[in-house]
């Protein structure tokens, strides 16, 4: 591995300041929590960090707690902790299931909520050193290349798909993201946190270069709300979603009062399918309704030359997720 300097941060604010000063001295900086993906990127040369700001020495950001307003989850909570926490399991099933579907136990034991949500894309061009939009270049090689894993919604000029399973669940739960930077703290809704390539083709979210995601807050979920994350992969485990669906439904018996449905693996950001949400409101959950919701989920789809296989997966994933949430 290239020569680098590890800096142990003791607070998020200190981490942001340390990143700012290192950058002012001309050094490339990376924040690290679990570090698994970052180290591979450094070894591969797709991340050229001279300085790693190590966040695991920070005491904050490791707890999951509830108050009158909802559930607060620290950014440094590991995916293993997230998938096993009683509060998350009881009230936020989709989030626990999404966390549990990531990678392998070894990865989940160190990987964090914030790291999963802010990880870089897994497009094979970007990961193999092509000078694409994500690497600061001016081209998306998937357009005329191998695009079997690329975006069906929201693409252009880059066609990456957002790699996180956790992020769609957070969007579906209307989470608020907490961000710390050299100039202080700010909050942004999960939906506004992620940005389409038409806005910024180089980055996947609204973090500026010295900012970090430090935690999320999820507004109180009613006791009549149920949720699930359904992930379809091209093998049984240990990979990103071909298609994932986070569905959060507030229901009265089997009647849907309110639905949030967010897709993974098909767009450069967690992709809300509002047409499905609107269709579901007022419907009785059942096989015909679930099937129709799956078909509606394809509205606006623009497959590339090699990724149309995801279309029936999108319909099937939505259908299964909704049927999972039928009462009794």
């Amino acid at each position, binding site marked *: 591995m290239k020569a*680098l300097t590890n800096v142990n941060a003791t607070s998020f604010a200190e981490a942001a300041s340390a990143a700012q000063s290192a950058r002012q001295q001309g050094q490339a900086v990376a924040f690290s929590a679990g570090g698994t993906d970052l180290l591979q990127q450094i070894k591969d040369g797709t991340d050229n960090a001279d300085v790693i700001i190590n966040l695991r020495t920070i005491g904050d950001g490791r707890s999951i707690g509830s108050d009158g307003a909802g559930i607060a989850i620290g950014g440094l909570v590991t995916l293993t902790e997230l998938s096993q926490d009683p509060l998350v399991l009881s009230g936020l099933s989709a989030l626990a299931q999404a966390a549990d579907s990531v*990678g392998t*136990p070894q990865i989940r034991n160190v990987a964090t909520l914030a790291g999963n949500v802010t990880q870089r894309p897994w497009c094979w061009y970007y990961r193999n050193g092509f000078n694409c939009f994500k690497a600061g270049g001016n081209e998306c090689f998937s357009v005329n290349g191998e695009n079997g894993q690329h975006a069906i919604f929201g693409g252009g000029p880059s066609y990456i798909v957002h790699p996180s399973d956790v992020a769609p669940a957070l969007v579906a739960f209307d989470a608020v993201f907490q961000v710390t930077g050299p100039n202080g703290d700010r909050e942004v809704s999960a939906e506004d946190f992620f940005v389409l390539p038409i806005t910024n083709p180089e980055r996947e979210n609204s973090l500026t270069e010295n900012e970090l995601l430090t935690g999320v807050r999820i507004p109180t979920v009613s006791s009549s709300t149920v949720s699930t994350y359904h992930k379809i992969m091209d093998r049984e485990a240990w990979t990103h979603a071909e298609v994932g669906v986070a569905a959060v439904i507030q229901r009265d018996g089997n009647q849907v009062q309110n639905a949030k449905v967010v897709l993974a693996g098909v767009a450069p950001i967690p992709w809300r399918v509002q047409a499905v949400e609107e269709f579901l409101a007022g419907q009785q959950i059942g096989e015909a309704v679930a099937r129709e919701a799956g078909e509606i989920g394809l509205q606006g789809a623009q497959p590339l030359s090699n990724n149309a296989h995801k279309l029936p997966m999108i319909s099937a994933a939505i259908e299964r997720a909704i049927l999972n949430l039928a009462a009794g």
Partner: protein
Amino acid sequence: MRDDKKQGKRSEQAPDQDPAVKYVDPLNPKQQSRRDFLEGTGTAVVAGAGISALGFPNAQAQSSTSGSRTAINVTVNGTGHSVDVDDRWTLAELLRDELDLTGTKIGCNRGECGACTVLMNGEPVYSCSQLAVWADGANIQTVEGLAQNGELTPVQQAFVVNNGPQCGFCTPGQLMTATALLNRNPSPSAEEVKDAMVGNLCRCSNYNAIVEAVVMAGEEGGVA
């Protein structure tokens, strides 16, 4: 650096544990271990110089720029070590190259194969994907920490009985993940074993035998 006597002693002890494996290999009548043999012929020196050319880590050899160094304290298999580490060293490199614990294997060196799995504070992690400096203050267990006084743990013994290792390269990582599983779930079902060990690949595809070994270890009383 490496304690040849200790290594040799361990490899000679193993056949005495179980009379069933007491035989003389006609090609290796002195029952030298593969490592003893390689070191005896000087191959190890050549291999050491060539490792970085093959893409395996040799931190000092890979860059002419010297990196930062940090003094850390880490407990490995119950023994405390104070080590001055190069910040770019992975935990796997620290274990293998500095502490001579070469039981931990580096397969893919990118968090995909699981051969380098060790227990960090009791939980399996990929040691190729952790910086050594991040292990400051941690308690690490490697495959060398399993057998005590030459006596295999039940899961190691179950790997022997079920032919868990074929080429054996993934075995140390498999054993560590299985050990963590058995510590928290002393009698796992085959499904639970598969779930827990999904992050350990076996290129020989010996998965059935590995699952059977871990299930057997559970049936026979876990790791303790």
